[in-house]
């Protein structure tokens, strides 16, 4: 029965919807949209069934779907400001209204204002910065998707409203989402990541004073929220207990690489260092620590530390013969996207700073996206390598400030006419700077990169993604488990350790007057991340001491 419903819903969702309306006497049901949402999420409740719904994404843009086809769209909510709309829930002939169902002319008789219902409209874009591996994991096998056969569209897809995507020049998909089950769930917030399942069609967008334009529109049947991590991994790693209990002397277990987080961690650091940082393991460790950081509390502010990798050489000059190629991105960018579900690289240049938006801005009541409108949990790699001498104008200054605000207070101000709204962000930042400190930003931690400056070493830092030496799949999976698991772990501090840290601070201050409370705060933050990266749920004295060693080494290299 259910599978029959499923087949029907996949083939013709509108008919399935109308059938539900007729069967349940939708015109009289208290809350039909609620029923729709429950009905369809029940049909597709199993993962297997869910994965049969074809995905709407960059590879399968809206023009590859038939009108009113069923799609699922994993998206970031970009703009919740479009006002709600009213629709006729029951058309004149007693048919089902809403979900973009067309009304024939004779339905107009007996327009009954009591049948008006409200639907919420929002704009959603495909998740910016989503890694390919993460997408594959969530999409499921492509051959399982019941994608309707359609002749390939002749012309390339041009996204509607590119200004509503954080990185407008990138290939992306943006659709208008209409939600009929308005009081069912928590209202969606900007930068939430949600999978919308619904009927894809085209409708007008724009409620302002401008003439509306037709855009792809998804009439939502039901939705699935995503946890902050998008993908989840256990913390501490499942086999950690065994490894910890038997101790490091137990060779049998220690041999199997993936079983021991410490080993995996070592291998991971080595891999990051070799592939992206010219073999500098210490810096790689700082990169790893940044990758496992997230906002733990807003009051008091426990934010992910922002890190500057100093002495990071600028990209090698692009040969003038290749006109098409822009300056290459550092290999670290590709490495991060192999490890993290969400990461984005922001190459800075004066031109882009002066021109592009970093913070979303509402112009003519249309919320334009900004480069920093990214879902929580994104790690942002900021490359200063492209910055040349020149003048930073108004917009540029503001952009720098906006990015600095994200780093230091994890809030992003959306600009609206006559008002600003600060939205919480959770974006870890790694700044790559050529000098001894970042030209624009004040970060919590600076770590000097120790890689050669000869052209060959520099080229290695910027080698293309396809020349990265990939670890064996099992190992890569272990890396991801480590990083993703650690991101959402929690670290406890026992009374003894906390007392140890206190007296340690007092002692050190007596020896070295330059030690301040800021140093203590930084060390505590790092120590927590250090414990997380080891998949240790407790901060021990040993970990604290090792953190201090790491921090001292870093400082020594800076001076």
């Amino acid at each position, binding site marked *: 029965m259910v599978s029959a419903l499923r087949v029907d819903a996949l083939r013709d969702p509108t008919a399935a919807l109308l059938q539900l309306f007729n069967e349940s006497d939708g015109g009289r049901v208290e809350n039909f949209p609620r029923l729709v949402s429950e009905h369809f999420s029940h049909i597709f409740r199993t993962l297997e069934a869910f994965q049969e719904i074809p995905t709407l994404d960059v590879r399968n843009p809206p023009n590859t779907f038939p009108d009113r086809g069923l799609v699922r769209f994993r998206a970031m909510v970009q703009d919740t400001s479009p006002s709600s709309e009213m629709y006729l829930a029951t058309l004149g002939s007693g048919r089902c209204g809403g979900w973009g169902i067309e009304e024939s002319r004779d*339905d107009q008789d007996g327009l009954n204002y009591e049948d008006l219902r409200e639907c919420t409209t929002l704009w959603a874009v495909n998740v910016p910065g989503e890694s390919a591996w993460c997408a594959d994991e969530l999409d499921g096998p492509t051959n399982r998707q019941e994608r309707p056969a359609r002749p390939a569209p002749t012309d390339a897809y041009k996204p509607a409203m590119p200004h509503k995507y954080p990185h407008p020049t990138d290939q992306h998909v943006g659709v208008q989402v209409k939600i009929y089950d308005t009081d069912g769930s928590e*209202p969606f917030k900007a930068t939430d990541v949600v999978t919308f399942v619904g009927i894809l069609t085209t409708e007008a967008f724009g409620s302002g004073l401008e003439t509306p334009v037709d855009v792809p529109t998804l009439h939502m049947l039901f939705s699935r929220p995503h946890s902050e991590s998008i993908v989840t991994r256990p913390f501490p790693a499942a086999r950690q207990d065994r490894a910890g209990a038997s101790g490091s002397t137990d060779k049998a277990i220690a041999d199997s690489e993936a079983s021991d987080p410490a080993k995996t961690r070592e291998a991971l650091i080595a891999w990051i260092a070799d592939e992206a940082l010219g073999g500098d393991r210490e810096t790689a460790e700082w990169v790893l620590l940044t990758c496992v950081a997230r906002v733990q509390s807003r009051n008091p502010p426990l934010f992910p530390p922002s890190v500057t990798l100093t002495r990071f050489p600028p990209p090698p000059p692009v040969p003038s013969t290749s006109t098409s190629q822009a300056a290459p991105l550092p290999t670290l960018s590709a490495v991060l996207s192999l490890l993290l579900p969400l990461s984005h690289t922001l190459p800075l240049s004066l031109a882009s700073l002066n021109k592009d938006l970093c913070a979303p801005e509402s112009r003519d009541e249309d919320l334009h996206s900004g480069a920093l409108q990214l879902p929580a949990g994104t790690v942002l790699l900021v490359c200063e390598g492209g910055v040349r001498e020149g003048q930073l104008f108004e917009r540029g200054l503001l952009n720098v400030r906006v990015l600095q605000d994200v780093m230091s207070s994890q809030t992003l101000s959306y600009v609206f006419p006559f008002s600003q709204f600060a939205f919480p962000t959770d974006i870890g930042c790694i700044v790559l700077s050529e000098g001894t400190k970042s030209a624009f930003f004040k970060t919590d931690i600076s770590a000097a990169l120790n890689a050669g400056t000869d052209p060959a070493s520099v080229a290695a830092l910027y080698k293309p993604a396809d020349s990265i030496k990939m670890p064996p799949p099992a190992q890569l999976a272990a890396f991801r488990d480590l990083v993703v698991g650690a991101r959402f772990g929690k670290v406890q501090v026992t009374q003894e350790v906390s007392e140890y840290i206190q007296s340690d601070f007092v002692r050190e201050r007596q020896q070295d007057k330059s030690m301040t*409370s800021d140093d*203590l705060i930084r060390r505590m933050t790092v120590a927590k991340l250090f414990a997380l990266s080891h998949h240790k749920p407790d901060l021990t004295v040993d970990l604290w001491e090792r953190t201090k060693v790491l921090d001292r080494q870093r400082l020594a290299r800076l001076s």
Partner: protein
Amino acid sequence: MGMNTPRRKTPLFAGGSSSPLAFPGSTPARNRTPMRYSRMDSDPSSTRDSEPLDFPSSPVKTPKNRRGDIHSSLSITPSSAARRARRTKLNDDMNSDGTHLSMPLSSAPHLSAPTVPSDEPDEIRAIWGTTVNLGETMKTFREFLRGFKTKYRVAYDRERGVRTRTLATPQEGEVQLYETYLRRMRQTGETNLNLDMINLASYPPSRKLHSQLIKYPQEVVPAMDQVLKDLMLEIAEEDQQAGVDGMRGEQGEEEIAEIMGKVYKIRPFGMPAVNMRDLNPTDTDKLVCIKGLVIRATPVIPDMKVAFFRCLACNHTVQVEIDRGKIDEPARCPREVCASVGTMSLVHNRCEFADRQVIRLQETPDAVPDGQTPHTVSLSVYDELVDVSKPGDRLVVTGIFRSVPVRVNPRQRTLKSLFKTFLDVVHVRLSSGERLGLDRSTRPAGGDRVPGVGGVGGGVDEDQDEENGVERERRTTKRAEMEAKLRELSQRPDVYDLLARSLAPSIWAMDDVKKGILLQLFGGTNKSIARGGGAGGPRYRGDINVLLVGDPGVSKSQILQYVHKIAPRGVYTSGKGSSAVGLTAYVTRDPDSKQLVLESGALVLSDGGVCCIDEFDKMTDATRSVLHEVMEQQTVSIAKAGIITTLNARTSILAAANPIGSKYNMNETITRNIDLPPTLISRFDLLYLVLDQVDESLDRKLAQHLVSLYLEDAPETGGGEDIVPLDELSAYITYARSRINPVITEAASDELVRSYVTLRKAGEDPRSNEKRITATTRQLESMIRLSEAHARMRFSPFVELDDVKEAYRLMREAINTSARDPTTGEIDMGLLDTGIGRQQRKLRGDMRKAVLGMLESGAGATRGVRWADVLKQLEGQSTIKVSAAEFQEVVRELEQEGLVKVVGERERRMIRKADSA
């Protein structure tokens, strides 16, 4: 939706159904409603229904109330016979088409006298699908306007436990409020009456009208308009008979004629405002009230109220009224003899237009749910309300919520079952600035009032409080609660410490700094010399500026962040990231209008608030120079792109700076430690040095505090002590700032004088006749401000002795740390005012004499002396070390004064007497 249901069995309020002047040859279907009263545009058959309207269709030419905001299909006839006669005459005057044919409004006699009790069955006078009996409604409203007295409102308010204004005299409560208003309207020629709906609810006979008005504004408001006009005339007639001044004889006739020609409008207000997100389909066509911020407004749009069509074949004319925002063009000539299809053409200059404007209203930040972006609704405003508000205004709007079908393709007649919604505005009120948390004393007296719309009348005590009734009352209960809580808090003996502690609970110690900043948040009172020259004379700032200087890593930035969150209109900026532009105001070209517009930056934005500037020392000189003006004159002048403007920037500044070389050098003066011009430093009322000193027990406590904050799972803030939550603290401050303006008592002023003299005296040195400056008038002013702020903090209307004592203590503490000359250990304000201490000045004076002496005597007199030699000689003469920098400064001064001349380069420099060369 009664009115829109096309089931018309009875020609309800139809005017022309039995027109005595039917056009010859017109359809004899007298019992059908004429087309202009047809209610459903979606009923395509209505065109056929239409009678060949009276040619030339004059009825619509009467000064009939055709409000764009109401779109009512009601046509209500005048009620009194005497008036009808008058109107006829008037109609003749008004109708320029010279036909004088019209008397159509008299054609519905069964409706024409709603005030007269009628025996007719109810359903005839009831509005379709509603419980509203029109005659009843008009009667009730008439009674209300006639009978409402202020005392009813007072009683009503009291009944609901709302704080009411006490009436000065019992007579005041007996005033027939609306009659007074109507007279005032006649005198001022105003045609709009603002109707506080709470008054409707408080007058027992009209209570039902209150809910009817909300549910069926489209029907009730025109009825009310009609009653208003009737009453205007009635009162005018009464006054004329009574021989009231200005209403006698001819003059009275004229007045009455004028009233006849006018269209009167009721503008109801006083409903509780709802969030615009909460408007839902059930509100359609009901009266609602929302609040928001105007973000855009279209230019004035001529909105067709009545379309005038003429048949090209037979010249028959038809007038069609707007219905639900559109006009149905007749497909064929309604005259049966003609009935040609597609010959009706619009005659533009015979159409009637109204002013209309579409405004986009956005949710105010306080109404937007967490994590959401603000929503926007469209408002349609008409006639008098056009151009009342401009982008940036906060409005409370009362209007009728509309849903109209969206046509997918305007060419097709198909509807997608989608509706767009908007508000037809009946009343606009500019929101008072109170909730913005800005200092009201920085706003012009009188506040922002709605210009021209005011009409007459409104709330009982509208003159005293711009807030409208329900809102005020709803808020007063909440506010009263809050107020009681705050008052209670203010009575605590330790309120000062408590508030200071709550200011930045996560920051350890620094009590005096927190106290200073706390007083900054409260601020002194602004004083202006009202009868000065020019526009009211100068305004003395009450804003207290605070500068924190200190070692890195002493949580200065954190303090700033806290203040930014608490302060009303707080703006946070980092010196490094902000250009002069970002900090002040700039001129840009508006993308829509291509006009140059001024956009405010941080300082102007925090007008009436606190501007927090971090990394003050990293700020460019150009930016800082702007601050000079801001801090004393409290204005920002902009000269850019051909516009020179001075903007108000009445803001307190809280700045944090790091010392040169990042670590404070205790052996140097403060001006040497921070890279800031002394002139700017002296503008800060309080300057705190926040130094990082190593102390084991303090360090241990600090570490404990931080570890618990950063590592443990349940972080305690403020070490478990009782603290006031941020929002309450913020409310406390806002309340104090807006309500309390303490006055200095005699005792306090004596103490101020005494303290000032003590501070000045500290500079007297019996050993020398040269005075050190320990206090200048700037310090006195600061002390006054601090005392006022302290009194404000206590919610005290008077500045008392203790306030001054605390102010003096804070000043001393601040001066102690900042103005102490490290060489002598004495306080010297000169250090802050000029950057040079007394000791240094004395030294320079001596050096100057010695240099001049050398040039006077010996070889130096003719050839000059070598730089290095002079320095060496001085070194020999002096008991203390002479620094090369000091020496250079002295020579530079002498050179500037034209006494000496320096020639040569570097080591070979020679100093010569200027006149000898």
